[in-house]
Each structure stands twice: as C-alpha cells, then as structure tokens.
C-alpha cells in the first residue's frame, strides 16, 4: 500500500517536471517559460520528495527532504523574479498576445535596483 502511494507520487512528480519541460519548448516568450518552470518543476520536486519520505521512514531523510522543500519554495520565486526583472530591464522581446505591461518605461536605474 505504501509503495502504491509512493509510486503515484513519483509518477505525478515526474509528469509535472515533464510538463515544465514541454512548457519550455512550446511557449513563446521568456516570461511565459519562467511561468512554466517555476511552478510546475517546484511542485514536481516536492511530490518526488514526498515519495522518498514515505518509503524511507527515518528522521534524517525527513529533515533533508524538508530542507530541500523549504529551499525550493523560498528561493524559486525570488530567483525567477530577479531573472524576469533583469530580462525586462535589458529589453528582452515579448511574444504576441500581451494586453498590458505596467513596467513599460519604468525600469531605469542602477544595477542594485534588481535586488529590491
């Protein structure tokens, strides 16, 4: 029974990561690709770590899996935000279908502004 749950978690996690990779290939823009990667790949990593935590019932495995989950949850949005801001500031072309862009013409400044 436990192995069934772990297998379901593993398969769904790898499918989410495959969806992220498909999004990287199929989507038309840097910002859309970031949107595909950050959410889908983080969720896939969390599901697969859940599979490991179910199979191995040891506290050191649980602590390390929790550390990976916390790092992924806390650092992935910040890193993607910084890359997106830097890409927008350096004038990466946008794909078709954008309705509005509130940052248009506002991102001029020094290089430390990307840290804020």
């Amino acid at each position, binding site marked *: 029974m436990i192995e069934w749950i772990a297998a379901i978690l593993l398969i769904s996690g790898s499918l989410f990561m495959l969806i992220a990779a498909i999004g990287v290939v199929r989507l038309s823009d840097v910002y859309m690709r970031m949107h595909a990667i950050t959410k889908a790949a983080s969720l*896939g990593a969390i599901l697969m770590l859940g599979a490991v935590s179910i199979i191995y019932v040891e506290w050191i495995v649980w602590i390390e899996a929790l550390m990976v989950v916390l790092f992924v949850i806390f650092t992935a949005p910040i890193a993607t935000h910084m890359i997106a801001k830097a890409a927008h500031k350096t004038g990466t072309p946008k794909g078709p279908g954008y309705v509005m862009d509130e940052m248009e013409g506002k991102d001029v400044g020094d290089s430390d502004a990307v840290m804020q």
Partner: protein
Amino acid sequence: MEIQTSAVLTFAIYFSFFCLTIGLFMGMYRLLTGPSLPDRIVVMDLVASLSIGLIITYILATGQTVFLNVAVAIALLVFMGNVAFAKFLIRRMEK
C-alpha cells in the same frame, strides 16, 4: 539499507527516469535554439529541477539516501547562480 522494491515501484522508477530524460533533452533544445540570453538562464533553472528529480529517483532505485545531500546542495546553488546571472545581465546592459 536495500529495500524490497515491488513491481509497481520499479515501474514508477523507470517511468520517472524516462520522463526526466525527455525533459533534459527538451531543455537542451531550448538551450541550443533559445533566441536570447534569459531563455538560456531559464533553462538552467529547469535543468537544476530535473537534476533534483533524477537524484531522488536514483535514491529510490538504489536505496542510498546519502544523495539527498546533493539535492540540498543543488537547491542552494541554483539560487546563487540565478542571482549572479541577474546581476550579470544588468551589468552587461550598462556597459
């Protein structure tokens, strides 16, 4: 430390390896044909996540839970790499 893997878990491990390898090839396609530099930086993020997935699948396949340390290190280093690349993009534009 060796676990008795049943048939369903073995199938899940092989399926996971298959999906993650296909994902790595897709990331390689985007890395080679990406029109701009931020596209390639985004691929670095994807490859790091896929590496974490591969390490976890390898742990389940072999029973070596020591490799979770590698997953922790990758999850930390990718953040540093993204910050460095963002700073590098801004600096390169200003020159």
